[in-house]
């Protein structure tokens, strides 16, 4: 993780910004995946048909 962070391009402030954007994007993608799994396996809303 540390190596990945240090390997990001640009000066330190830019690395921080890029890392934050990547982290937020990963969380959003993860939530979509969670939502898909939840809707299909856990609770589809109880609709019929």
């Amino acid at each position, binding site marked *: 993780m540390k190596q990945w962070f240090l390997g990001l391009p640009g000066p330190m402030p830019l690395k921080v910004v890029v890392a934050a954007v990547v982290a937020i994007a990963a969380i959003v993608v*993860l939530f979509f995946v969670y939502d898909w799994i939840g809707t299909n396996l*856990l*609770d589809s*809303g*109880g*609709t019929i048909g």
Partner: protein
Amino acid sequence: MDDSMTPPVETSASRSRGTLTRVVRVAGWTSIVIGVLILGFVVQQLFVTTWFAQQHQTALTEDAEEHFAAAEISEVDYVPPSPVGSPGEGTVTPGAGGSSTDEGAPLGPKKRTLLVESTPEKGSAFAVIRIPTIDRLKDGWAIVEGVELRNLKNGAGHMPHTPLPGLPGNTVISGHRTTYGAPFHEIGELVPGDVIEIDTALGTHTYEVRETIIVRPTELWVTEPRDGAWLTLTTCHPKFSSRQRLIVFAELVDGPNWEAIYA
């Protein structure tokens, strides 16, 4: 530090110890990552979705109240197919339309007047469901028009093409049981005789639970029209699975249209 010490010689035993250490470390981190992902899933499904649903509910309940004030209400003629509960239910009596014979004896069922409201827009809140015996629903939960996933994330959803609450036929309402606020979490505890109230622009419609059953998700017959005025609640079953559906059938026992439908 003793500089004269000779560097340690790497033996096969120390090499295998190093490999074992790496394997254990990788397995440990993998377990931690999987654990965090699973914990994240549980937190997202049970708490984050519920938090969003509750935020939506506050706004939707206000929207429903605005709808009650603004909805267009009209009166329409209604001819029941046959006296409710009589043999031959569901058949249309010849001469239906409220006319009489020449002798003055009624030929078909008497024409009655129903109150109806305009069809709500897809996704909009138009009613509130209350079940006094269920903690989660005793203060009410907004019902939105539509049963698509995006509709059900906000509230319980009314299945389009089924009658609005309080009208003859079979009103079908679906809701989440474990996520997105889980409005129907406890409807499995309903027993015959329990009361379900639905507020709409017409007033409060009171239904009484008649039966609870479990079916497969494809059993569309539960949504088919019925004689009288019925409410069908559908949700996932068992809890934390969408393998089956829990169905609650309830019949109208009071409300603005009860007399027109049953009297």
